[in-house]
């Protein structure tokens, strides 16, 4: 939203060009392992690394500095540092004035940005040179042939032209989408602070102030270091020092945000706040200073020509392998998270919060490949299974190893595992610029499987048989002929970063182990380089980095200014509240406006409850479940031993996934040769009466977890209430607990196996599905959420591929997301951890664990086995 496009990132190899690398819950060495060496080598070149996380994490052992912050408070931490920088005036004035919306004027009356037409009679919007204006419905060139941003005349009119206060003339001055960077008018020096009066065309007066001024008032009243410490736990000194360091390293500070902080309902606020911090300090678009939000590997847009594959007109198929496809899109995307949420939009009180362009349709059938996160590891998976799947008529799934998605699918197609694919393919990354071919394997298939693409093609062929329509088959012609590379070549030819490459050349090169390079503008790729160095506009209506959101929904929801909002469930305090003292521009709708009760803090209502609280009020408040013995925020980040929802899936891998791997399963209760676990601080374990290695129950809000209606469904509750090992871990802050995201969840069948098999494995007797838990899973404490600000029809955004800017829903760019997996939980001891089911887990019983260390271990920790130190090098 700040940039008008999906998100920013940079090739991780650029770390060696930086002085200061700040990592915000971005556990680089654990989750971007192939690029781990760039971070450690950047340090060898003199860079300093700072980790910001609720724990001493993997990457912290590669960092110079670390700041512990409370889960989901990254936005407050960033805004606190922004406050320090604005307070001290250590921001980069030129960058702020020329590349951001901070000098743009906001009207006090409407809270919207002032437009030129508001006060200049007869004003006609400027003709922009940085944008190609088209008529609605007009065709545009393929991505490779697009020379600038593209927008419809309708949308351009809506943009208007914005205004700043020119301190040289003491009058308002118009600045357009063209006037960014070096194209900012030379004779205009825009004010950043102050309040001014403008006479509108109807003769009335309105007060206006720069966005900077409005933000500064908010930060000075609500985000001082002392206030931020109250809410984030970060010491004041940490806030002050890091802010000073960042300001002292313009163009040389990298900000990398990770999946951990992204997995909270109000997550995008952190990106907005961190972008503000980066913009203030001139750290966007430089090799050594920019912003990267690494939430997975999400940028299909690196293959900008992908529409050649995904939107070939099935009514006008091109069978000539040398010719491009004709594109005509006959399908509409929607966020998968409405299905996840129970196959409904967000309607609460008297309001429909899901915008028209986002509106989903009920799910009749699902057909998907791999993507275990759609079902097997969906947020609130168990609720989906019990309450949503019964409404779906058919689920077809492609997979090469048996996952929980397979457990519940009606039809499972066994497809080639990745090393045994007989068809070529192509892939890229957001963290590096390599263009890689999936080389056809010399391996023979282990079973009688087919490639994913072949399954689709053969289904198409079957439709031809049933209907007589040849087009079902022709659509997959090259796949059926055994070589899909013409499709790949079409994608290459249409894309900015790939045109000029022959796929056959790439395939040959990759066979020998050498990939090609994506042809971005720069190497390393840094998104924002063209905006910073060539003054190209951003993809926003103003052309600038936008920190003020004057869309009516954002004003209504209290997020027109960058703010911190408490997590919607994963907090010790009042959930979902906006951290702000009263501010003239922050007047969000209250629950009563939606016919809701302000004291209704139920999970559903929290999604639309825009109550404002100061830092002090937040710190003193408590989560509603605290009264019932709930005590911990539980977060479930991603780790090094498995990849996303491809669960920890081989016995060799899980043997070393955390502490509970034992090939011989001395403890016969173990669901498998290893198992999932929850980490908690040693003091918390003592308080809870839980020992290292014990089995515990983990419960989240009983209103909807482990699934809605659990009270009336004892069979499913028995299978899906979460029982898991506790692991005492001194690296986590107290009162937060952590479980990894990856272990295979329990299914009805795995629980049946655990209870009926002689070996006690949690393995489905019929399918061999192997769960990583005895009962339930990490998804027993999660659920789907729908965030109102992600469902508006008003937001301007670049499409997923190419330079066209539109409005409202856009798949993978602007839509409801499935990120949040936060919860506030209660722990109860279930069983002893000793191998025979009694007493303490063996390593703890032996005295080699934190909290139970024996004398030798204590001596070891102190380095006490060498009594005098040596002096110089021998």
């Amino acid at each position, binding site marked *: 939203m700040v940039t008008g496009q999906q998100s920013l990132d940079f090739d991780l*190899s650029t770390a*060696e*060009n930086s002085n200061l690398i700040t990592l915000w819950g971005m556990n680089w060495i654990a989750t971007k*392992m192939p690029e*781990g*060496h760039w971070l*450690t*080598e950047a340090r*060898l070149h003199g860079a300093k690394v700072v980790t910001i996380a609720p724990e*001493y*994490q*993997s990457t*912290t052992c*590669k960092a110079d*500095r*670390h*700041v*512990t912050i409370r889960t989901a408070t990254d936005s407050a931490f960033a805004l606190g540092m922004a406050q320090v920088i604005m307070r001290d005036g250590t921001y980069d004035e030129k960058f702020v004035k020329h590349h951001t919306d901070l000098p743009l004027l906001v009207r006090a009356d409407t809270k919207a940005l002032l437009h030129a037409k508001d006060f200049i009679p007869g004003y006609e919007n400027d003709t922009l040179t940085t944008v190609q204006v088209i008529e609605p419905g007009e065709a545009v060139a393929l991505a490779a042939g697009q020379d600038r941003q593209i927008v419809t005349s309708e949308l351009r009119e809506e943009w208007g032209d914005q205004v700043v206060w020119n301190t040289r003339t003491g009058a308002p001055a118009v600045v357009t989408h063209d006037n960014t960077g070096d194209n900012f008018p030379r004779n205009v020096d825009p004010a950043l602070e102050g309040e001014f009066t403008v006479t509108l065309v109807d003769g009335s007066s309105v007060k206006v102030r720069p966005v900077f001024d409005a933000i500064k008032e908010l930060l000075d009243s609500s985000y001082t270091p002392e206030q931020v410490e109250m809410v984030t*736990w970060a010491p004041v000194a940490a806030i002050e020092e890091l802010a000073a360091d960042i300001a002292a390293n313009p163009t040389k500070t990298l900000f990398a945000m990770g999946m951990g902080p992204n997995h909270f309902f109000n997550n995008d606020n952190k990106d907005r706040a961190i972008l503000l911090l980066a913009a203030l300090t001139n750290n966007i678009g430089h*090799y050594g200073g920019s912003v990267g939000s690494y939430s997975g590997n999400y940028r299909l847009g690196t293959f*900008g020509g992908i529409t050649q594959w995904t939107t070939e007109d099935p009514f006008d198929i091109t069978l000539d392998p040398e010719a491009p496809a004709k594109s005509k899109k006959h399908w509409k995307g929607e966020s998968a998270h409405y299905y996840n949420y129970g196959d409904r939009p967000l309607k609460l009180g008297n309001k429909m919060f899901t915008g028209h362009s986002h509106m989903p349709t009920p799910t009749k059938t699902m057909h998907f490949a791999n993507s275990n996160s759609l079902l097997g590891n969906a947020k609130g998976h168990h609720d989906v299974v019990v309450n949503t799947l019964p409404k779906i008529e058919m689920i077809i799934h492609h997979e090469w190893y048996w996952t929980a998605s397979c457990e519940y699918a009606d039809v499972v197609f066994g497809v080639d595992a990745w090393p045994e694919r007989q068809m070529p393919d192509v892939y890229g990354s957001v963290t590096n610029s390599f263009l890689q071919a999936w080389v056809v394997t010399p391996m023979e298939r282990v079973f009688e499987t087919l490639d994913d693409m072949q399954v689709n093609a053969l289904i198409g062929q079957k439709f031809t048989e049933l209907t007589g329509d040849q087009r079902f088959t022709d659509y997959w012609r090259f796949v059926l002929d055994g070589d899909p590379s013409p499709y790949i070549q079409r994608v290459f030819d249409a894309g*900015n970063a790939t045109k*000029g490459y022959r796929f056959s050349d790439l395939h040959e090169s990759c066979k020998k182990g050498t990939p090609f390079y994506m*042809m*971005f*503008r*720069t*190497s390393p*790729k*840094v998104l*924002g380089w063209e905006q910073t160095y060539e003054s190209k506009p951003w993809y926003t209506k103003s052309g600038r980095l936008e920190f003020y959101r004057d869309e009516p929904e954002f004003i209504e929801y209290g997020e027109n200014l960058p703010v911190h909002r408490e997590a919607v469930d994963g907090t010790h305090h009042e959930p979902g509240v906006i951290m702000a003292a009263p501010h003239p521009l922050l007047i969000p709708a209250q629950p009563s406006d939606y016919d809701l009760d302000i004291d209704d803090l139920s999970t559903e209502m929290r999604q639309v409850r825009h109550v404002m609280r100061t830092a002090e009020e937040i710190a003193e408040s408590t989560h509603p479940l605290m009264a019932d013995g709930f005590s911990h925020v539980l977060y479930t980040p991603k780790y*090094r031993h498995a990849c996303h929802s491809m669960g920890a899936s081989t016995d*060799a891998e899980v043997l*070393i996934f955390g*502490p509970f*791997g034992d090939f*011989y399963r*001395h403890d016969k209760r173990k669901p498998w040769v290893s198992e999932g676990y929850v980490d908690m601080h040693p*003091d918390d374990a003592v308080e809870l009466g839980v020992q290292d290695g014990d089995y515990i129950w983990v419960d989240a809000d009983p209103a909807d977890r482990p699934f809605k209606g659990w009270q009336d469904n004892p069979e499913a509750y028995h299978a899906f209430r979460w029982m898991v090992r506790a692991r005492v*871990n*001194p*690296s*986590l802050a*107290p009162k937060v607990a952590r479980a990894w995201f990856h272990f295979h969840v329990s299914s009805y069948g795995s629980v049946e196996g655990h209870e009926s098999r002689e070996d006690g494995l949690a393995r489905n007797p019929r399918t061999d599905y192997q769960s990583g838990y005895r009962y339930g899973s990490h998804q027993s404490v999660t659920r789907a959420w729908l965030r109102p600000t992600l469902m508006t029809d008003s937001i301007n955004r670049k499409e997923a*591929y190419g330079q066209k800017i539109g409005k409202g829903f856009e798949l993978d760019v602007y839509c409801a997301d499935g990120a949040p997996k936060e919860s506030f939980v209660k722990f109860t001891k279930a069983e002893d951890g000793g191998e025979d089911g009694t007493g303490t887990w*063996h*390593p703890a019983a*032996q005295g*080699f*664990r934190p909290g139970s260390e024996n004398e030798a*271990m204590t001596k*070891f*920790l102190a*380095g006490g086995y*060498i009594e005098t*130190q*040596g*002096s110089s*090098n*021998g």
Partner: protein
Amino acid sequence: MAEVFNWQLNRMMAYPYEESRPVRQAAAVFDTNKCIGCQTCTMACKTCWTSGNGQEYMLWNNVETKPWGSYPLAWDVRELELLGPQNWDGDTYAGKTIYEAAAAGEKNIGWIPTDMDYAYPNRGEDEVNVSITTQRYHLKMPHDMWFFYLPRVCNHCTYAACLQGCPRQSIYKRQEDGIVLIDEERCRGYRVCYEACPYKKVFYNHTTRVSEKCVFCFPAVEQGIQPRCMRNCIGKIRSFGFLSRPEEVREDNPIDFLVHVRKVGKPLYPQFGTEPNVYYIPPIHVASDDFLTMMFGPGCLDAIDSYKKAMRGDDPKLLAVLLLAVSTDRIIHRYKLSGETIEAWDENGDKVVSMPLKVPTLERVPYDEDLEVYRYNIT
């Protein structure tokens, strides 16, 4: 009994066999500051060597988090406890080795792990030494709350405990490269080696009933290729090559440079007295001087200073050699830094690496006229 010179202890010590250093010693230097704990090395080894019956629990290569991790359980705590507190006199070891501390009639101190000691091999992963408290929410260098990763393989010791313990002399050290191997046809599974090895890197196979251990992938090494755990290290922490005899040190050999010239590569628990040949660059972020000295010997703090000097830009040669790690599958025999480029050659004299110390940045034209395509960073 013979008297041999152990250069890591800077003195003579007792050992059952005469000093007989190999022509060159296969050796490695692991930079703990780069280890990311990914366990790719563990998987590279296991999928190749220990996926058979009886080998399920074996990790010839393992990575443990210090201080709470250990495989088998508390292997080092127990060995140190058996040895008892010892001391150094400057660079000379003033304490007892595992041989010297043996009871009368015994060749070495030792202990036998039980079955349960091999369970939970990655226990302790990512656990700091002391509990986090609000006082430790803002950490600076060095961290007074810390952990680090310690990847371990067989150290192919110069004075191996396994070798000297075997009553049947089933274990031998190759003269051509110092790799220590068990003759599995001669072995009868007495497990004296298993008890003797202070690093617990000999394993017993309950199915075949003989012992086995890391072989330094000698079939690859014989062809000039690095062992699997070394060349698959994606953190690029492992420098593998041949350590020269102490009197034949060659500065343009990366291993000699790191161990004998810059002295940043330190042995693991040198006080055991086996002269291990896998060396470690100590973790610079760990504030516990005593812990580091206990583990890596005196001089580990100087090693940290030398590493930091390279980080400041004041030792381009050391920086270059550190960047060379895992940049080729071939074993490097010689390197050269010329300005901003480092080159390396294998045993045959073929150049196997040529790379810049920093990757140059590059801008492309916005419009390629020949290909008729617009290039963007934001596609």
